[in-house]
C-alpha cells in the first residue's frame, strides 16, 4: 500500500489543505531541515500504534523547535526481523536522526568539528506496548541500515496532547548517570 501524505499548512486555517502526494521510500530519503516545508503528516501505518511516521514528524518538529536540535532527518529503516512488529505492513520503521544542542552525557565525546554526536530517536506512542524482542529488532535493523550497531538510542514517547518524553535505551549494561 502506498502511504498517503496529507499536507497541512502551518497556521491552521480550515480550507488551505488537502493535497495528496506519495512518499518517497528510497533507502535514505532526506526530508530536508526546513521545518516549514516539513509539515507533511504522513499516514503510513495508522493501524500500527507502535511506530508511525505521523509521530516521527511531530517528534522531529519538537526536537527542532522546542529542544533546538540540529541536522534533523527522518529515516525509514527496513526491519530485519519483521515478526517483532506484526502490525507493520510495509516492513519499515521510522526513526529520526539528529544532533542535540550539547552532548547529553558529560562523558560523551564531541565530533571532530566540536559538535555533539548524532543520536537516533525512535518515536512511539505512549500507550503502546514494548518488548525485549522489539528493542533487539530495532537495534538489529539500525545495525543493518548504517553498518554498525549504535550503543544507544532515544525513545520518544508521544502522547496525543503533544507531550513528548525522551528516554535513553542503552544496549547492555551501562553505568548510570551520576546526576
Amino acid at each position, binding site marked *: 500500500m502506498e502511504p498517503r501524505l496529507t499536507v497541512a499548512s502551518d497556521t491552521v486555517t480550515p480550507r488551505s489543505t488537502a493535497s495528496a502526494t506519495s512518499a518517497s521510500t528510497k533507502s535514505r530519503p532526506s526530508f530536508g531541515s526546513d521545518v516549514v516545508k516539513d509539515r507533511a503528516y504522513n499516514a503510513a501505518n495508522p493501524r500500527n500504534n507502535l511506530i508511525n511516521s*505521523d509521530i516521527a514528524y511531530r517528534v522531529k518538529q519538537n526536537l527542532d523547535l522546542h529542544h533546538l536540535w540540529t541536522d534533523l532527518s527522518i529515516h525509514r529503516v527496513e526491519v530485519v526481523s519483521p515478526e517483532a512488529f506484526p502490525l507493520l505492513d510495509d516492513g519499515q520503521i521510522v526513526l529520526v536522526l539528529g544532533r542535540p544542542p550539547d552532548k547529553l552525557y558529560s562523558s560523551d565525546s564531541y565530533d571532530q568539528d566540536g559538535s555533539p554526536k548524532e543520536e537516533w530517536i525512535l518515536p512511539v506512542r505512549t500507550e503502546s506496548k514494548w518488548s525485549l524482542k522489539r528493542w533487539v529488532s530495532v537495534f538489529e535493523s539500525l545495525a543493518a541500515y548504517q553498518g554498525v550497531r549504535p550503543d544507544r538510542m532515544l525513545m520518544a514517547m508521544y502522547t496525543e496532547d503533544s*507531550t513528548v518524553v525522551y528516554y535513553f535505551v542503552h544496549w547492555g549494561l551501562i553505568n548510570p548517570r551520576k546526576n
Partner: protein
Amino acid sequence: MKKRNLNAIYHSPLPVEVVALPPLVPHNPISVAYYVYQLVFVPFLWGFKRRRRLTAYMELYTDSVSSYVSSIAVGSYEDMQELWKAGFFGKGTQSRSDPTWVLRTSKRLQEASGETEIVAPEEVTARRRAARKKFKNARALVEQGVVSNPADPEKVETNEERRGQKLTRAEDMALRDSEGKVRQLEKLQLTFQEAFFLAYALDIIDIYDGRTGDLVTVPYLLGLLMPDWSPDNSFIVNYVVYHHYRSHGWCVRNGVKFGVDYLLYKRGPPFSHAEFGVIVIPLYSDESKNQLMRRDWYWSSGVNRVVGGVKKTMVLCYVKVPDCIDKWHSVEELLKMYEVREVVLRRWIPSRNRD
C-alpha cells in the same frame, strides 16, 4: 498581590461566561432596579447575543480501511490564550505547558540577549539544567584529573560557550517570516478527552476536519475516537474519568510524565502543584476478569514512589464498564452507564505515626 495577579489572569475555571446577579440592597432603589435588570433583561438580551466560539482542527491519518484521529489542535493565538487561561486546556506543542514558544524564540533570536527577564517556566528549567550541566562537566574534569576543584570557573565551560556563544542555528532561518518576525509555528494541542469535553459538554468549540474543512459533529467525533464501540474502549473510559473530575471542579491534565493518566489541580498549574495523580482502571461486571487484570504491588509501589516523590497522592480510579453499549444512546445516556469508584493510596511511615 501575586495571588491577585494570578486571579486576574486566570479569571475563570472554564471557558464559559458567567453573569452573576449583583448584590441586592432592598432599601436602595438603584440597587433594586439594577437587580431586576440583571434578573429579567439580561437573560432576555442573552438570546440575541452572538457568542464567539473557538475553532480547532483535527488531523486524521487514513489507511485503506479507515481513518484515525491523529491530533486536535487550536491554532489562533486568541483561542489558545482563552483555552489556557480559562481552565488550562491543552498544551503548547513546543512548550511544556502553556504556549510560550513564540515568546521564547523571539527572545532567543534577539541578538542582544543580555536581558534576564523570565517569561516562561521553560526558561527556569533551562537555567537550572544549564547550571547543573556546568557542575557535571566540572566534576567530570575533576574525575579526569584535569582540574582539582569543581568550583574552579576558569576551566568550566559548556559546549555553547566554547563554540562562542552560538545562540542561533542554521535551522532558525526558517522560523522567521519575510518581516523577520517569528512565525507562529506552535499550536495548542488538546487531548481527545479535552476536545470532546469542550465540544460536547461545554459546546464552546467547533472542530473542523483539517483536510476537508468540514465541521465535525459530536456524534461523528465520538465515532472517530472510539471506532470499535467497545464498552471498555480507552477513549470512553478515560473520558468518563476526565468528565467526572472536571465536573467536580478539578483542573485535569495529562500525567504521562509521572507515569499516571491524569493530574488533578485544585485550580491550575500556575497556582500550585497537582495534588493527585490518577490511574484509570476499567472494571468489569465479570469479577473473574477483574481478578485477572489485577496489578501487582511492584507496580503500585513504583508509581506511588514517583507520584509521592513530587508530593502527590495516588488515586486509583476504577471505571465500571457496562456489558454492552448502543450507538443509539445519547452521549449523556451513554456516560451514565459508567460508574466511577476511587481508592487513594499513600505511603505510610510507621516512625512518623507513633506520636
